[in-house]
Protein backbone atom coordinates (compact mmCIF):
# COMPACT_ATOMS: atom_id res chain seq x y z
CA UNK A 1 0.00 0.00 0.00
CA UNK A 2 1.24 3.48 -0.87
CA UNK A 3 0.74 6.60 1.23
CA UNK A 4 -1.66 7.79 -1.41
CA UNK A 5 -3.82 4.71 -1.10
CA UNK A 6 -3.76 4.78 2.67
CA UNK A 7 -5.90 7.94 3.03
CA UNK A 8 -9.23 6.21 2.49
CA UNK A 9 -8.22 3.27 4.70
CA UNK A 10 -7.22 5.70 7.48
CA UNK A 11 -10.62 7.30 7.32
CA UNK A 12 -12.29 3.90 7.46
CA UNK A 13 -10.11 2.95 10.42
CA UNK A 14 -11.56 5.91 12.34
CA UNK A 15 -14.97 4.34 11.75
CA UNK A 16 -13.80 1.01 13.09
CA UNK A 17 -13.03 -0.70 9.79
CA UNK A 18 -9.58 -2.28 10.24
CA UNK A 19 -7.15 -2.93 7.43
CA UNK A 20 -4.12 -5.16 7.75
CA UNK A 21 -2.46 -3.54 4.76
CA UNK A 22 -2.85 -0.15 6.42
CA UNK A 23 -1.38 -1.37 9.66
CA UNK A 24 1.64 -2.74 7.80
CA UNK A 25 2.01 0.55 6.03
CA UNK A 26 1.68 2.60 9.20
CA UNK A 27 4.36 0.52 10.82
CA UNK A 28 6.80 1.65 8.19
CA UNK A 29 5.64 5.19 7.48
CA UNK A 30 5.96 7.89 10.17
CA UNK A 31 4.34 10.53 7.90
CA UNK A 32 1.16 8.49 7.60
CA UNK A 33 1.14 7.71 11.31
CA UNK A 34 1.25 11.43 11.97
CA UNK A 35 -1.41 12.02 9.32
CA UNK A 36 -3.71 9.47 10.97
CA UNK A 37 -3.19 11.00 14.38
CA UNK A 38 -4.03 14.45 13.00
CA UNK A 39 -7.14 13.06 11.36
CA UNK A 40 -8.20 11.43 14.60
CA UNK A 41 -7.79 14.67 16.53
CA UNK A 42 -9.62 16.75 13.94
CA UNK A 43 -12.43 14.21 13.89
CA UNK A 44 -12.58 14.31 17.68
CA UNK A 45 -12.78 18.11 17.66
CA UNK A 46 -15.66 17.92 15.20
CA UNK A 47 -17.53 15.32 17.24
CA UNK A 48 -17.05 17.30 20.44
CA UNK A 49 -18.78 20.38 19.04
CA UNK A 50 -21.72 21.31 21.30
CA UNK A 51 -25.01 19.91 20.11
CA UNK A 52 -28.28 21.80 19.89
CA UNK A 53 -31.20 20.59 21.91
CA UNK A 54 -34.47 19.61 20.28
CA UNK A 55 -37.25 21.03 22.45
CA UNK A 56 -40.90 19.92 22.84
CA UNK A 57 -41.87 23.35 21.46
CA UNK A 58 -40.18 22.47 18.19
CA UNK A 59 -42.17 19.25 17.96
CA UNK A 60 -45.39 21.17 18.59
CA UNK A 61 -44.45 23.71 15.91
CA UNK A 62 -44.06 20.93 13.33
CA UNK A 63 -47.38 19.36 14.31
CA UNK A 64 -49.13 22.74 14.16
CA UNK A 65 -47.79 23.43 10.70
CA UNK A 66 -48.69 19.96 9.52
CA UNK A 67 -52.31 20.59 10.49
CA UNK A 68 -52.47 23.71 8.30
CA UNK A 69 -53.63 23.41 4.69
CA UNK A 70 -50.68 23.59 2.35
CA UNK A 71 -49.92 26.91 0.69
CA UNK A 72 -53.56 27.86 0.14
CA UNK A 73 -53.18 31.66 0.30
CA UNK A 74 -50.18 31.70 -1.99
CA UNK A 75 -51.90 29.55 -4.55
CA UNK A 76 -54.99 31.71 -4.51
CA UNK A 77 -52.99 34.86 -4.99
CA UNK A 78 -50.88 33.43 -7.74
CA UNK A 79 -53.36 31.43 -9.63
CA UNK A 80 -56.43 33.60 -9.48
CA UNK A 81 -59.99 32.55 -9.25
CA UNK A 82 -59.93 29.96 -11.95
CA UNK A 83 -57.27 27.84 -10.32
CA UNK A 84 -58.72 28.38 -6.86
CA UNK A 85 -62.03 27.06 -8.09
CA UNK A 86 -60.28 24.19 -9.75
CA UNK A 87 -58.38 23.43 -6.56
CA UNK A 88 -61.46 23.53 -4.39
CA UNK A 89 -63.31 21.35 -6.83
CA UNK A 90 -60.43 18.89 -6.82
CA UNK A 91 -60.30 18.88 -3.05
CA UNK A 92 -64.03 18.40 -2.61
CA UNK A 93 -64.45 15.69 -5.15
CA UNK A 94 -61.35 13.73 -4.17
CA UNK A 95 -60.43 12.91 -7.74
CA UNK A 96 -58.16 10.09 -8.70
CA UNK A 97 -54.50 10.95 -8.13
CA UNK A 98 -52.87 12.50 -11.16
CA UNK A 99 -50.84 10.05 -13.21
CA UNK A 100 -47.17 9.95 -12.38
CA UNK A 101 -46.22 11.22 -15.85
CA UNK A 102 -47.61 14.55 -14.74
CA UNK A 103 -44.76 14.78 -12.24
CA UNK A 104 -42.27 14.78 -15.08
CA UNK A 105 -44.18 17.42 -16.98
CA UNK A 106 -44.49 19.72 -14.02
CA UNK A 107 -40.84 19.24 -13.07
CA UNK A 108 -39.84 20.04 -16.63
CA UNK A 109 -41.98 23.18 -16.73
CA UNK A 110 -40.62 24.30 -13.36
CA UNK A 111 -37.16 23.76 -14.64
CA UNK A 112 -37.78 25.72 -17.83
CA UNK A 113 -39.20 28.60 -15.88
CA UNK A 114 -35.86 29.00 -14.18
CA UNK A 115 -33.81 28.77 -17.32
CA UNK A 116 -33.89 32.18 -18.82
CA UNK A 117 -30.13 32.29 -18.67
CA UNK A 118 -29.81 29.41 -21.09
CA UNK A 119 -29.18 29.82 -24.78
CA UNK A 120 -32.38 30.20 -26.83
CA UNK A 121 -31.68 27.10 -28.91
CA UNK A 122 -31.38 24.94 -25.79
CA UNK A 123 -34.62 26.37 -24.47
CA UNK A 124 -36.35 25.78 -27.75
CA UNK A 125 -35.26 22.19 -27.91
CA UNK A 126 -36.26 21.56 -24.29
CA UNK A 127 -39.65 23.13 -24.76
CA UNK A 128 -40.17 20.96 -27.81
CA UNK A 129 -39.46 17.95 -25.63
CA UNK A 130 -42.27 18.97 -23.29
CA UNK A 131 -45.25 16.96 -24.28
CA UNK A 132 -47.79 19.73 -23.91
CA UNK A 133 -50.82 17.81 -25.17
CA UNK A 134 -49.95 15.13 -22.63
CA UNK A 135 -49.54 17.73 -19.89
CA UNK A 136 -53.00 19.14 -20.41
CA UNK A 137 -54.43 15.75 -21.27
CA UNK A 138 -53.20 14.20 -18.02
CA UNK A 139 -54.70 16.94 -15.95
CA UNK A 140 -57.96 16.91 -17.85
CA UNK A 141 -58.41 13.23 -17.15
CA UNK A 142 -59.50 14.44 -13.72
CA UNK A 143 -63.22 15.12 -14.23
CA UNK A 144 -63.18 18.10 -11.86
CA UNK A 145 -60.67 19.87 -14.10
CA UNK A 146 -63.00 19.76 -17.10
CA UNK A 147 -64.57 23.19 -16.54
CA UNK A 148 -61.11 24.73 -16.62
CA UNK A 149 -60.08 23.13 -19.85
CA UNK A 150 -59.90 26.51 -21.56
CA UNK A 151 -57.54 27.88 -18.95
CA UNK A 152 -55.27 24.85 -19.09
CA UNK A 153 -55.12 24.87 -22.86
CA UNK A 154 -54.31 28.57 -22.76
CA UNK A 155 -51.43 27.80 -20.39
CA UNK A 156 -50.12 25.18 -22.77
CA UNK A 157 -50.39 27.64 -25.65
CA UNK A 158 -48.41 30.20 -23.66
CA UNK A 159 -45.62 27.73 -23.05
CA UNK A 160 -45.70 26.65 -26.66
CA UNK A 161 -45.52 30.25 -27.85
CA UNK A 162 -42.49 30.86 -25.68
CA UNK A 163 -40.88 27.81 -27.25
CA UNK A 164 -41.64 29.05 -30.73
CA UNK A 165 -40.30 32.52 -30.01
CA UNK A 166 -37.03 31.13 -28.76
CA UNK A 167 -34.85 34.16 -29.21
CA UNK A 168 -37.62 36.30 -27.75
CA UNK A 169 -37.26 34.58 -24.39
CA UNK A 170 -37.75 37.23 -21.80
CA UNK A 171 -38.14 37.68 -18.11
CA UNK A 172 -41.88 38.26 -18.61
CA UNK A 173 -42.25 35.02 -20.50
CA UNK A 174 -40.30 33.21 -17.81
CA UNK A 175 -42.54 34.66 -15.13
CA UNK A 176 -45.62 33.69 -17.07
CA UNK A 177 -44.34 30.18 -17.48
CA UNK A 178 -43.38 29.95 -13.84
CA UNK A 179 -46.84 31.13 -12.84
CA UNK A 180 -48.49 28.60 -15.12
CA UNK A 181 -46.40 25.78 -13.78
CA UNK A 182 -47.03 26.84 -10.19
CA UNK A 183 -50.73 26.98 -10.86
CA UNK A 184 -50.83 23.47 -12.16
CA UNK A 185 -48.69 22.28 -9.30
CA UNK A 186 -50.68 24.03 -6.62
CA UNK A 187 -53.98 22.98 -8.12
CA UNK A 188 -52.85 19.40 -7.84
CA UNK A 189 -51.62 19.90 -4.31
CA UNK A 190 -55.19 20.57 -3.29
CA UNK A 191 -55.90 17.04 -4.26
CA UNK A 192 -53.43 16.00 -1.57
CA UNK A 193 -51.08 14.55 -4.12
CA UNK A 194 -48.06 16.85 -4.12
CA UNK A 195 -45.74 13.96 -3.50
CA UNK A 196 -46.58 12.55 -6.86
CA UNK A 197 -45.75 15.84 -8.49
CA UNK A 198 -42.43 16.84 -7.00
CA UNK A 199 -39.90 14.16 -6.18
CA UNK A 200 -38.25 15.97 -3.29
CA UNK A 201 -35.65 13.46 -2.28
CA UNK A 202 -34.44 12.93 -5.81
CA UNK A 203 -34.49 16.02 -8.02
CA UNK A 204 -34.67 15.36 -11.74
CA UNK A 205 -31.35 15.53 -13.63
CA UNK A 206 -32.68 18.31 -15.79
CA UNK A 207 -33.56 20.27 -12.63
CA UNK A 208 -30.07 19.93 -11.22
CA UNK A 209 -28.46 20.81 -14.52
CA UNK A 210 -30.65 23.86 -14.94
CA UNK A 211 -29.98 24.92 -11.38
CA UNK A 212 -26.24 24.65 -11.95
CA UNK A 213 -26.32 26.69 -15.14
CA UNK A 214 -28.56 29.27 -13.58
CA UNK A 215 -26.37 29.63 -10.53
CA UNK A 216 -23.29 30.11 -12.69
CA UNK A 217 -25.16 32.77 -14.63
CA UNK A 218 -26.24 34.47 -11.42
CA UNK A 219 -22.76 34.60 -9.94
CA UNK A 220 -23.18 31.76 -7.44
CA UNK A 221 -20.42 29.35 -8.50
CA UNK A 222 -20.40 27.45 -5.21
CA UNK A 223 -24.10 26.69 -5.54
CA UNK A 224 -23.61 25.78 -9.19
CA UNK A 225 -20.80 23.35 -8.37
CA UNK A 226 -23.00 21.79 -5.68
CA UNK A 227 -25.89 21.31 -8.09
CA UNK A 228 -23.79 19.90 -10.91
CA UNK A 229 -21.74 17.70 -8.62
CA UNK A 230 -25.00 16.39 -7.17
CA UNK A 231 -26.14 15.64 -10.70
CA UNK A 232 -22.93 13.71 -11.44
CA UNK A 233 -23.23 11.79 -8.17
CA UNK A 234 -26.84 10.82 -8.79
CA UNK A 235 -26.92 10.34 -12.53
CA UNK A 236 -23.36 9.66 -13.69
CA UNK A 237 -24.59 7.99 -16.87
CA UNK A 238 -27.48 10.33 -17.64
CA UNK A 239 -27.72 12.63 -20.63
CA UNK A 240 -26.81 15.68 -18.55
CA UNK A 241 -23.64 14.21 -17.04
CA UNK A 242 -21.33 15.22 -19.86
CA UNK A 243 -22.67 18.78 -20.17
CA UNK A 244 -22.27 19.06 -16.39
CA UNK A 245 -18.63 17.90 -16.62
CA UNK A 246 -17.95 20.47 -19.33
CA UNK A 247 -19.65 23.25 -17.34
CA UNK A 248 -17.68 22.36 -14.19
CA UNK A 249 -14.40 22.04 -16.06
CA UNK A 250 -14.93 25.38 -17.81
CA UNK A 251 -15.70 26.97 -14.45
CA UNK A 252 -12.56 25.62 -12.77
CA UNK A 253 -10.47 26.59 -15.80
CA UNK A 254 -11.82 30.14 -15.57
CA UNK A 255 -11.08 30.16 -11.85
CA UNK A 256 -7.48 29.16 -12.53
CA UNK A 257 -7.76 25.68 -10.97
CA UNK A 258 -6.51 23.92 -14.06
CA UNK A 259 -5.99 20.52 -12.49
CA UNK A 260 -9.58 20.34 -11.26
CA UNK A 261 -10.67 21.48 -14.70
CA UNK A 262 -8.66 18.71 -16.32
CA UNK A 263 -10.12 16.19 -13.91
CA UNK A 264 -13.64 17.13 -14.97
CA UNK A 265 -12.71 17.13 -18.64
CA UNK A 266 -11.32 13.67 -18.03
CA UNK A 267 -14.69 12.57 -16.65
CA UNK A 268 -16.47 13.18 -19.93
CA UNK A 269 -17.87 9.86 -20.99
CA UNK A 270 -19.06 10.35 -24.53
CA UNK A 271 -16.46 11.10 -27.17
CA UNK A 272 -19.00 13.15 -29.12
CA UNK A 273 -19.06 15.64 -26.24
CA UNK A 274 -15.47 16.53 -27.07
CA UNK A 275 -16.26 18.88 -29.91
CA UNK A 276 -13.38 20.80 -31.52
CA UNK A 277 -14.24 23.77 -29.25
CA UNK A 278 -14.15 21.65 -26.11
CA UNK A 279 -10.94 19.99 -27.30
CA UNK A 280 -9.39 23.42 -27.79
CA UNK A 281 -10.32 24.40 -24.24
CA UNK A 282 -8.88 21.15 -22.87
CA UNK A 283 -5.67 21.72 -24.80
CA UNK A 284 -5.38 25.27 -23.53
CA UNK A 285 -6.06 24.21 -19.93
CA UNK A 286 -3.50 21.42 -20.17
CA UNK A 287 -0.95 23.84 -21.63
CA UNK A 288 -1.47 26.28 -18.75
CA UNK A 289 -1.19 23.48 -16.22
CA UNK A 290 2.04 22.32 -17.83
CA UNK A 291 0.60 18.92 -18.58
CA UNK A 292 1.43 16.97 -21.67
CA UNK A 293 -1.72 16.70 -23.67
CA UNK A 294 -2.06 13.69 -25.85
CA UNK A 295 -5.53 14.08 -27.09
CA UNK A 296 -8.29 13.81 -27.38
CA UNK A 297 -6.69 10.85 -28.99
CA UNK A 298 -8.80 8.02 -30.24
CA UNK A 299 -7.47 4.93 -28.54
CA UNK A 300 -9.96 2.50 -29.99
CA UNK A 301 -8.22 -0.80 -30.41
CA UNK A 302 -4.97 0.45 -28.93
CA UNK A 303 -2.71 -2.27 -27.61
CA UNK A 304 -0.59 -2.23 -24.50
CA UNK A 305 2.46 -0.95 -26.34
CA UNK A 306 0.57 2.05 -27.67
CA UNK A 307 -0.67 2.85 -24.19
CA UNK A 308 2.77 2.49 -22.76
CA UNK A 309 3.99 4.89 -25.42
CA UNK A 310 1.30 7.40 -24.51
CA UNK A 311 2.02 7.07 -20.84
CA UNK A 312 5.77 7.28 -20.80
CA UNK A 313 6.82 9.66 -18.08
CA UNK A 314 3.52 9.88 -16.24
CA UNK A 315 0.13 8.52 -15.34
CA UNK A 316 -2.43 8.50 -18.11
CA UNK A 317 -5.91 9.70 -17.36
CA UNK A 318 -8.96 10.17 -19.42
CA UNK A 319 -11.84 8.25 -20.80
CA UNK A 320 -10.51 4.77 -21.30
CA UNK A 321 -12.62 1.66 -21.33
CA UNK A 322 -11.74 -1.98 -21.65
CA UNK A 323 -12.38 -3.02 -25.22
CA UNK A 324 -12.59 -6.45 -26.81
CA UNK A 325 -9.57 -8.74 -26.87
CA UNK A 326 -7.69 -6.95 -24.14
CA UNK A 327 -7.53 -3.73 -26.10
CA UNK A 328 -8.90 -0.41 -24.94
CA UNK A 329 -11.16 2.18 -26.38
CA UNK A 330 -11.75 5.75 -25.45
CA UNK A 331 -9.97 9.01 -25.25
CA UNK A 332 -6.74 9.83 -23.61
CA UNK A 333 -6.94 13.34 -22.31
CA UNK A 334 -3.56 13.79 -20.80
CA UNK A 335 -0.62 12.49 -18.87
CA UNK A 336 -0.04 13.51 -15.28
CA UNK A 337 3.67 13.85 -14.67
CA UNK A 338 5.48 11.27 -12.61
CA UNK A 339 5.76 13.40 -9.49
CA UNK A 340 2.00 13.22 -9.06
CA UNK A 341 2.34 9.57 -8.40
CA UNK A 342 4.52 10.28 -5.42
CA UNK A 343 2.15 9.44 -2.64
CA UNK A 344 3.78 11.77 -0.17
CA UNK A 345 3.35 14.81 -2.43
CA UNK A 346 2.10 17.56 -0.12
CA UNK A 347 -1.42 18.67 -0.88
CA UNK A 348 -0.31 22.29 -1.21
CA UNK A 349 1.84 21.36 -4.17
CA UNK A 350 -0.91 19.37 -5.77
CA UNK A 351 -4.26 20.77 -4.70
CA UNK A 352 -6.29 18.80 -7.18
CA UNK A 353 -4.75 15.41 -6.95
CA UNK A 354 -7.68 14.20 -4.90
CA UNK A 355 -10.16 15.42 -7.45
CA UNK A 356 -8.37 13.55 -10.16
CA UNK A 357 -8.36 10.37 -8.14
CA UNK A 358 -11.99 10.68 -7.29
CA UNK A 359 -13.06 11.26 -10.82
CA UNK A 360 -11.21 8.53 -12.61
CA UNK A 361 -13.06 5.36 -11.86
CA UNK A 362 -10.52 2.57 -11.56
CA UNK A 363 -13.16 0.07 -12.58
CA UNK A 364 -13.17 1.67 -15.96
CA UNK A 365 -9.46 1.51 -16.30
CA UNK A 366 -8.33 -1.72 -17.87
CA UNK A 367 -5.64 -3.75 -16.20
CA UNK A 368 -2.98 -2.44 -18.53
CA UNK A 369 -3.68 1.14 -17.50
CA UNK A 370 -3.69 0.20 -13.82
CA UNK A 371 -0.25 -1.34 -14.17
CA UNK A 372 1.01 1.76 -15.87
CA UNK A 373 -0.45 3.97 -13.19
CA UNK A 374 1.35 2.11 -10.39
Amino acid sequence: MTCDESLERMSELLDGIPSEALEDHLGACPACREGLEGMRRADGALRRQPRLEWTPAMTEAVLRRARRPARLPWALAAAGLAVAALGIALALRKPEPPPSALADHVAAVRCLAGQEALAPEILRSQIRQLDLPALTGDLLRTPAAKPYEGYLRETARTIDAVGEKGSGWSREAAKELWGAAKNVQDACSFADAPARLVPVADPAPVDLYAEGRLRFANGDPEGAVRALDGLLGRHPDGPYADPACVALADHFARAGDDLSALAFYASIRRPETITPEVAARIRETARRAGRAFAGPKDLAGADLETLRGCASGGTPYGLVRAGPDGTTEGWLLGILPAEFRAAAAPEAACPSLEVRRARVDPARMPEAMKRLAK
Partner: protein
Amino acid sequence: MVDDDDRAMQGLREGRPEALREIVERHGPVVLNFLHRMTGDRALAEDLSQETFLRVFRHAATYVPGGGFRAWLFAIARNLAWKHGRRPAPAAPPPPPEPAPAETARRAELEAAVGAALDRIEEPFRSALVLCSVDGVSYKEAADACGCSVKTISSRLARARARLRDLLAPQLREDGP
Protein backbone atom coordinates in the same frame (compact mmCIF):
# COMPACT_ATOMS: atom_id res chain seq x y z
CA MET B 1 -38.65 -6.75 8.67
CA VAL B 2 -40.75 -3.71 9.51
CA ASP B 3 -38.89 -1.29 11.74
CA ASP B 4 -40.30 1.45 13.98
CA ASP B 5 -39.87 4.11 11.30
CA ASP B 6 -41.65 2.08 8.65
CA ARG B 7 -44.49 1.45 11.11
CA ALA B 8 -44.72 5.18 11.87
CA MET B 9 -44.74 6.04 8.17
CA GLN B 10 -47.53 3.55 7.65
CA GLY B 11 -49.39 5.34 10.42
CA LEU B 12 -48.78 8.65 8.70
CA ARG B 13 -50.24 7.33 5.49
CA GLU B 14 -53.26 6.13 7.41
CA GLY B 15 -53.73 9.63 8.82
CA ARG B 16 -52.74 8.97 12.45
CA PRO B 17 -51.34 12.26 13.80
CA GLU B 18 -49.38 10.61 16.62
CA ALA B 19 -47.22 8.93 13.96
CA LEU B 20 -45.77 12.29 12.98
CA ARG B 21 -45.07 13.13 16.61
CA GLU B 22 -43.26 9.83 17.01
CA ILE B 23 -41.07 10.48 13.97
CA VAL B 24 -40.31 14.07 14.96
CA GLU B 25 -39.39 13.17 18.52
CA ARG B 26 -37.21 10.27 17.43
CA HIS B 27 -35.28 12.07 14.70
CA GLY B 28 -35.63 15.76 15.61
CA PRO B 29 -32.32 16.07 17.50
CA VAL B 30 -30.19 14.42 14.85
CA VAL B 31 -31.84 16.32 11.98
CA LEU B 32 -31.46 19.63 13.82
CA ASN B 33 -27.79 19.06 14.51
CA PHE B 34 -27.12 17.79 11.00
CA LEU B 35 -28.68 20.96 9.56
CA HIS B 36 -26.82 23.12 12.04
CA ARG B 37 -23.47 21.67 10.93
CA MET B 38 -24.51 21.96 7.29
CA THR B 39 -25.75 25.55 7.41
CA GLY B 40 -23.71 27.02 10.26
CA ASP B 41 -26.80 28.90 11.41
CA ARG B 42 -28.91 27.89 14.38
CA ALA B 43 -32.12 29.71 13.44
CA LEU B 44 -31.95 28.48 9.87
CA ALA B 45 -31.30 24.94 11.08
CA GLU B 46 -34.42 25.10 13.26
CA ASP B 47 -36.55 26.35 10.36
CA LEU B 48 -35.19 23.74 7.99
CA SER B 49 -35.72 20.98 10.55
CA GLN B 50 -39.40 21.88 10.69
CA GLU B 51 -39.55 22.00 6.93
CA THR B 52 -37.87 18.59 6.70
CA PHE B 53 -40.53 16.96 8.86
CA LEU B 54 -43.31 18.75 7.03
CA ARG B 55 -41.99 17.28 3.81
CA VAL B 56 -41.90 13.85 5.38
CA PHE B 57 -45.54 14.40 6.32
CA ARG B 58 -46.63 15.71 2.92
CA HIS B 59 -44.66 13.23 0.87
CA ALA B 60 -45.30 10.17 3.00
CA ALA B 61 -47.02 8.55 0.04
CA THR B 62 -43.75 8.41 -1.89
CA TYR B 63 -41.80 6.67 0.85
CA VAL B 64 -41.03 3.07 0.04
CA PRO B 65 -40.84 0.96 3.22
CA GLY B 66 -37.80 -1.23 3.61
CA GLY B 67 -35.66 0.16 6.38
CA GLY B 68 -34.34 3.14 4.44
CA PHE B 69 -36.20 5.82 6.34
CA ARG B 70 -33.17 7.56 7.82
CA ALA B 71 -31.49 7.79 4.42
CA TRP B 72 -34.68 9.27 2.95
CA LEU B 73 -34.98 11.72 5.83
CA PHE B 74 -31.37 12.85 5.47
CA ALA B 75 -31.81 13.17 1.71
CA ILE B 76 -34.65 15.63 2.30
CA ALA B 77 -32.69 17.54 4.95
CA ARG B 78 -29.60 17.62 2.77
CA ASN B 79 -31.58 18.94 -0.21
CA LEU B 80 -32.94 21.73 1.97
CA ALA B 81 -29.48 22.55 3.30
CA TRP B 82 -28.15 22.69 -0.27
CA LYS B 83 -30.92 24.98 -1.32
CA HIS B 84 -30.18 27.45 1.45
CA GLY B 85 -26.41 27.22 1.38
CA ARG B 86 -24.13 27.84 4.30
CA ARG B 87 -23.77 31.02 6.27
CA PRO B 88 -20.11 31.74 6.97
CA ALA B 89 -19.06 31.37 10.58
CA PRO B 90 -17.92 34.58 12.30
CA ALA B 91 -14.22 35.23 11.81
CA ALA B 92 -13.50 35.05 15.53
CA PRO B 93 -15.55 34.12 18.58
CA PRO B 94 -17.18 37.09 20.30
CA PRO B 95 -15.06 38.37 23.20
CA PRO B 96 -16.19 37.08 26.56
CA PRO B 97 -17.63 39.68 28.94
CA GLU B 98 -14.90 38.99 31.45
CA PRO B 99 -11.64 37.11 31.18
CA ALA B 100 -12.52 33.47 30.68
CA PRO B 101 -10.52 30.60 32.05
CA ALA B 102 -7.86 29.45 29.59
CA GLU B 103 -9.62 26.14 28.97
CA THR B 104 -12.95 27.82 28.14
CA ALA B 105 -11.26 30.29 25.82
CA ARG B 106 -9.39 27.51 24.01
CA ARG B 107 -12.57 25.50 23.61
CA ALA B 108 -14.43 28.50 22.18
CA GLU B 109 -11.59 29.16 19.79
CA LEU B 110 -11.55 25.55 18.62
CA GLU B 111 -15.32 25.61 18.20
CA ALA B 112 -15.08 28.69 15.99
CA ALA B 113 -12.23 27.12 14.04
CA VAL B 114 -14.28 23.98 13.39
CA GLY B 115 -17.18 26.15 12.14
CA ALA B 116 -14.84 28.08 9.86
CA ALA B 117 -13.30 24.83 8.60
CA LEU B 118 -16.74 23.46 7.74
CA ASP B 119 -17.33 26.65 5.73
CA ARG B 120 -14.34 25.77 3.64
CA ILE B 121 -15.19 22.14 3.03
CA GLU B 122 -17.39 22.16 -0.02
CA GLU B 123 -20.31 20.00 -0.84
CA PRO B 124 -20.65 17.07 -1.34
CA PHE B 125 -17.71 16.43 0.98
CA ARG B 126 -19.24 18.37 3.88
CA SER B 127 -22.39 16.27 4.01
CA ALA B 128 -20.36 13.04 3.92
CA LEU B 129 -18.31 14.33 6.84
CA VAL B 130 -21.26 15.54 8.91
CA LEU B 131 -23.38 12.46 8.24
CA CYS B 132 -20.74 9.84 8.95
CA SER B 133 -18.44 11.55 11.38
CA VAL B 134 -20.83 13.60 13.50
CA ASP B 135 -24.17 11.90 13.19
CA GLY B 136 -22.81 8.38 13.09
CA VAL B 137 -24.79 7.45 10.01
CA SER B 138 -23.58 4.27 8.29
CA TYR B 139 -21.78 4.52 4.93
CA LYS B 140 -24.72 2.75 3.30
CA GLU B 141 -27.28 5.18 4.70
CA ALA B 142 -25.11 8.16 3.82
CA ALA B 143 -24.69 6.80 0.29
CA ASP B 144 -28.45 6.42 -0.06
CA ALA B 145 -29.02 9.91 1.32
CA CYS B 146 -26.48 11.43 -1.07
CA GLY B 147 -27.53 9.35 -4.07
CA CYS B 148 -24.12 7.82 -4.66
CA SER B 149 -22.25 4.59 -4.02
CA VAL B 150 -20.73 3.49 -0.71
CA LYS B 151 -17.31 3.70 -2.36
CA THR B 152 -17.95 7.32 -3.29
CA ILE B 153 -19.02 8.17 0.26
CA SER B 154 -15.91 6.54 1.66
CA SER B 155 -13.74 8.52 -0.74
CA ARG B 156 -15.55 11.81 -0.04
CA LEU B 157 -15.32 11.22 3.69
CA ALA B 158 -11.58 10.55 3.50
CA ARG B 159 -11.02 13.73 1.51
CA ALA B 160 -13.16 15.76 3.88
CA ARG B 161 -11.35 14.40 6.92
CA ALA B 162 -7.96 15.12 5.40
CA ARG B 163 -9.09 18.65 4.59
CA LEU B 164 -10.47 19.16 8.11
CA ARG B 165 -7.20 17.90 9.58
CA ASP B 166 -5.20 20.38 7.48
CA LEU B 167 -7.54 23.29 8.26
CA LEU B 168 -7.48 22.61 11.99
CA ALA B 169 -3.78 21.85 12.17
CA PRO B 170 -2.78 25.16 13.82
CA GLN B 171 -5.46 24.91 16.54
CA LEU B 172 -4.85 21.24 17.21
CA ARG B 173 -1.11 21.83 17.49
CA GLU B 174 -1.75 24.52 20.11
CA ASP B 175 -4.40 22.41 21.75
CA GLY B 176 -2.03 19.55 22.44
CA PRO B 177 -2.90 15.88 22.33
